[in-house]
């Protein structure tokens, strides 16, 4: 089977049937996986999943392959770009269906928790944490992901995630300790 990276993009954007067919075979597993995952929190039927996947392909070839022509191989791999486009199309599809529901077990506790309005939260001063430190803390605590998942996301090793997390918390503790009277 042809890999996505082997697809002749010029021929694909020119609308050649054979190239399109090859592209569909190569891209279907990824689009299928992304669409299913994106729609997993919506109670949609198998037919809806099929329609959402078809919607992705329609977007790619619509208006003389306009969307496909925006892809720049110098900036990212076709698989990654296709995954981003597919997810965004699937979310749009689900929003159109307006049946957004999530099993309660899948929702992080931090989202379900009722906020205590009487406790004033401390504000993190601008520049105290780097963007990466903030992102790592949010992934670990707000999204309840483990270190390996965050490492996979940021393309760094797990030890780097741990040390970045540790440094970020040290900074926070030092800052708020100093602020305390």
């Amino acid at each position, binding site marked *: 089977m042809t890999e996505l990276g082997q697809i002749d993009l010029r021929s694909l954007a020119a609308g050649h049937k054979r190239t399109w*067919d090859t592209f569909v075979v190569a891209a279907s*597993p990824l689009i299928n996986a*992304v669409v299913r*995952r994106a729609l997993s929190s919506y109670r949609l039927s198998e037919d809806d999943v099929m329609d959402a996947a078809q919607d992705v*392909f329609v977007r790619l*070839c619509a208006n003389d392959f306009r969307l496909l022509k925006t892809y720049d191989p110098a900036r990212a791999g076709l698989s990654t770009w296709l995954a981003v486009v597919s*997810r965004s199309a699937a979310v749009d599809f689900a929003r159109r269906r307006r049946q957004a529901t999530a099993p309660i077990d899948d929702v992080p506790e931090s989202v379900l928790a009722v906020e205590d309005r009487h406790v004033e939260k*401390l504000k993190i001063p601008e520049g105290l944490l780097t963007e990466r430190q903030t992102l790592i803390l949010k992934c670990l605590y707000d999204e309840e992901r483990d270190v390996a998942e965050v490492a996979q996301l940021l393309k760094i090793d797990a030890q780097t995630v741990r040390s970045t997390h540790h440094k970020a918390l040290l900074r926070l503790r030092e800052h708020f*300790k100093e602020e305390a*009277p």
Partner: protein
Amino acid sequence: MSTERIPSSDRALWQSLATDRPVAPEAVSDMDFAAWLEGRLPEATAARIEAAVANDPAMRQAALELAEILGTTLPVPPARMTVRAQALVGFEAERQSPRQSPRQTWLAGLFPAFGRGFALHRGAMAGMAVVIAVAGFVLGGGLGETYVEGKYASTRSQTVPKPFGRDTINDLNDLFTDNT
């Protein structure tokens, strides 16, 4: 504020902080997002995307999901999905049909079949039909002419007086003989 408000556990500390910035999430293009997911962006640009992802729960969710999917072996999709998608783009023979001349365009307007391929085949069929019709007309006309000629000839034989022959001369002789 007192130090007692600083929780001992890291999680509790983080949850006691106002971590959401009151700014609208920055728009990130699909191409930039994909490049960031692959770790291809320079530090400054990556920081901009990381700020956007940190500030927008939907983007964070998307990033984590996509990173997970892109790092795993994918299941085989249903055949129906592939077949439907392949049908979206037509066949090359149809797409690469030569540009039509103004006359062909006019014909296509008059007869839609001319604009949908098979024009040569249909033209040949139409030509054969014309030949058959003309041949039929000629044959039919020929028979008609023969019939008219035959009918005209029979009518003429009844109306044209007989030329003077031996019988007529004999009749005249008899008439004059009787009178004398």
